[in-house]
């Protein structure tokens, strides 16, 4: 007699209780193991001698207890030094070309063909100038930093950095590779976001994305350096000024690193609790870096990336700031209304309305914060003979900049809080957009955007209150 369907199902059910839970995994494991054994038996690797010995020697040095960390610090110091010192010259060239030569040519051209003042203002003073600004400040350091970084990666050194540092990242619930994405973030947070793809564990990748903004990006370094020189360097004797202001900037950057550890830790203990976490880190064999190929591809990639970003994001910002400064309602321009509105909030956190407006305008690109602040200061204090007019960004020498800040009522507190706020505020729009694209989650993108901003408000508020108390 044939068993009925019910009988078969019944037997299956009984057997399931005996077999237990893991049979899917056991089956898979057996198949894998069989396959691996067949491959081991029948595949040979003729004539290919692995270069284990050389690799072992290099690994022995770069991951040794004695040399591992000093070597790492030395290498990264050299990379940053080359970037900062090497970027000034081409930055100057580009600025001279785009702002010193092309900009007046465009203005003359516009006047010759008889463009109305508002159209040439909007297009050239607003949109063109903002774009030129971002390109000249941003392009050179990126074009130096990223190829150097890629060379280290190509050689095989960067995974060893993650290997050396993983224990500390583990303690804050993060992945060792976050060291690398953070380092990338010092160049550009948006690039850092893309770089988190190397972290294959979902939870650690989210942590790396959310905390990337605490790595002080290239667009914020100039602000930090300028403010540190003008306010903190000025407090000490001239011969120490350079050193002290450099230390202040490094201090802010290190504060950012510590914040990123702290935030990683609290995220992994709170909202990200329960997200899947796996770890594995491959240490690929070393190989001679393909220098020329790396430099060209990474240059071209980054160059196009920056230009695209400048066009898409900085141009509208330039237009908005020009319009805001030039459309008047009654006696005041739109932007002045906004400044007056934000002044009380600015005062509470030891800043002022102008700085807050500059940060709103600078959401597309942090590079334009200082030029915007300068322009708005001139605009609101009705100075003549300084700057280039309403809605036209400019930058000037340190003495004049300091004089302008003084006119705007800045104190040491303003400088200090501006440095803190520059470290802790929302990421730029490119970074936000990249985060959204990479994570595919609106929720986490919002967290990454608002968390640093809230922290910035809280920290500057506390600092301002303490300052006024003592």
């Amino acid at each position, binding site marked *: 007699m044939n068993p009925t369907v019910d009988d078969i199902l019944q037997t299956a059910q009984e057997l399931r209780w005996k077999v237990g839970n893991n049979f899917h995994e056991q089956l898979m*494991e057996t198949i894998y*193991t069989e396959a691996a054994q067949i491959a081991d038996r029948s595949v040979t690797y003729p004539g290919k001698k692995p270069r284990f010995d050389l690799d072992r020697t290099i690994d022995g040095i770069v991951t040794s207890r004695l040399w591992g960390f000093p070597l790492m610090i030395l290498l990264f110091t050299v990379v940053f030094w080359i970037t900062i010192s090497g970027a000034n010259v081409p930055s100057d060239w580009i600025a001279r070309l785009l702002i010193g030569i092309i900009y007046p040519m465009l203005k003359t051209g516009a006047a010759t063909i008889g463009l109305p003042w508002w159209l040439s203002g909007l297009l050239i003073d607003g949109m063109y100038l903002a774009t030129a600004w971002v390109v000249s400040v941003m392009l050179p350091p990126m074009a130096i930093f990223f190829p150097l970084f890629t060379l280290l990666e190509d050689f095989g050194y960067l995974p060893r950095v993650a290997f050396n540092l993983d224990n500390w990242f583990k303690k804050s619930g993060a992945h060792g590779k976050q060291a690398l994405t953070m380092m990338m973030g010092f160049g550009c947070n948006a690039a850092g976001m893309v770089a988190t793809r190397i972290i294959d564990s979902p939870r650690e990748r989210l942590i790396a994305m959310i905390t990337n903004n605490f790595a002080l990006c290239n667009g914020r370094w100039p602000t930090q350096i300028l403010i540190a020189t003008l306010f903190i360097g000025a407090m000490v004797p001239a011969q120490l000024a350079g050193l002290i202001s450099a230390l202040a900037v490094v201090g802010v950057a290190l504060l950012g690193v510590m914040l990123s550890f702290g935030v990683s830790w609290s995220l992994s203990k709170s909202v990200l609790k329960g997200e899947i976490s796996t770890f594995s880190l491959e240490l690929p064999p070393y190989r001679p870096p393909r220098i020329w190929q790396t430099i060209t591809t990474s240059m071209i990639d980054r160059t196009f990336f920056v230009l695209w970003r400048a066009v898409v994001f900085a141009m509208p910002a330039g237009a908005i700031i020009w319009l805001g400064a030039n459309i008047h309602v009654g006696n005041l321009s739109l932007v002045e209304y906004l400044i007056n509105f934000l002044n009380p909030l600015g005062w509470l956190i030891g800043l002022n309305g102008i700085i807050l407006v500059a940060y709103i305008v600078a959401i597309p690109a942090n590079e334009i914060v200082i030029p915007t602040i300068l322009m708005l200061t001139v605009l609101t204090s009705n100075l003549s003979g300084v700057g280039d007019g309403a809605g036209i960004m400019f930058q000037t020498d340190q003495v004049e900049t300091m004089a302008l800040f003084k006119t705007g009522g800045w104190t040491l507190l303003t400088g200090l809080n501006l440095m803190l706020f520059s470290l802790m505020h929302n990421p730029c729009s490119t970074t936000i957009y990249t985060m959204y694209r990479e994570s595919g989650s609106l929720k986490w993108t919002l967290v990454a955007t608002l968390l640093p901003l809230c922290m910035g408000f809280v920290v500057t508020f506390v600092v301002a209150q303490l300052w006024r108390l003592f």
Partner: protein
Amino acid sequence: MNKLTDTTERIFSEDALKHIYECEQEHRRPTMQSVAGSVQITLGKTADLLTKMASRNLLQMKGEEFQLTDEGRDYALQIVRAHRLWERYLADETGFAETEWHELADRHEHSMSPTEIEALAAKLGHPTHDPHGDPIPTAKGEFVPHGGQPLTVMSVGDMARIVHLEDEPETVYAQIVAEGLYVGLEVRLTEISPERIRFRSNGNEYTLAPVFALNISAVPLPKNHVMASSDCERLTCLEPGQSGKVVNISPTCRGPERRRFMDLGILPGTLITAEMRSPSGDPTAYRIRGALIALRHEQGNLINVKRKGKNDNDNQQ
């Protein structure tokens, strides 16, 4: 009646059902006090609650005594099912720690509709046991008990397979988890005394106080059984330069983590050599099938290897 009291009442009556069902399983008699203690409400409220449950035909009350009706038992089984499925889900598909599973499952078991419970079971591949070794009742309420007995009742020299780890109280469970014990582990008892229970497994020796051993149930293995993992040890026992062949990946390692290991080629029989340790102490890099892979300490603990002598190693290369 508003929705809030509706929900709390559902939680109370479900918790009471679960408690009475557990008493029934363990051949204890549930009392008003034990129900009140388990649900954490006052005696007065408990009386009301039990009366209401009786009126819904979940309980039969005879004076002070009460027992589940068939309907009540079915209901209780569905809650147990939801609870254990949730624990299975938390263990396999999330990164929550072992000690958090129970409490989270306690919270979620009350908010599941029958369709949701079925969907969860299907998603998990209709598992038979929760991560502590308790059987998950089927939708019809059928199950086979794990059949284990506490380690304390076994005798020295016995071999046994752990089939259940009690997850309450949490402090005891946390200790068991910290020892690295898991369902499916095969052990050989070496000492049983009123002070301590001692056993060997995977090359490690474990010593537990009887109060902990009481919460571990195991089934005895036949005398001629060859322990699957005798004389092997954890991958982390290898010092840089030493090699071992993989015996197995611990069954506690599941889901994405296990798949990752297998993708890396960590399979029974694979030769692994410890190469170097990070200057910060962790992770350690291992040579696996020609690639250099860094694994963290707690991951290395999930992989059991059989150490290779120096000579074997030379033959291999």
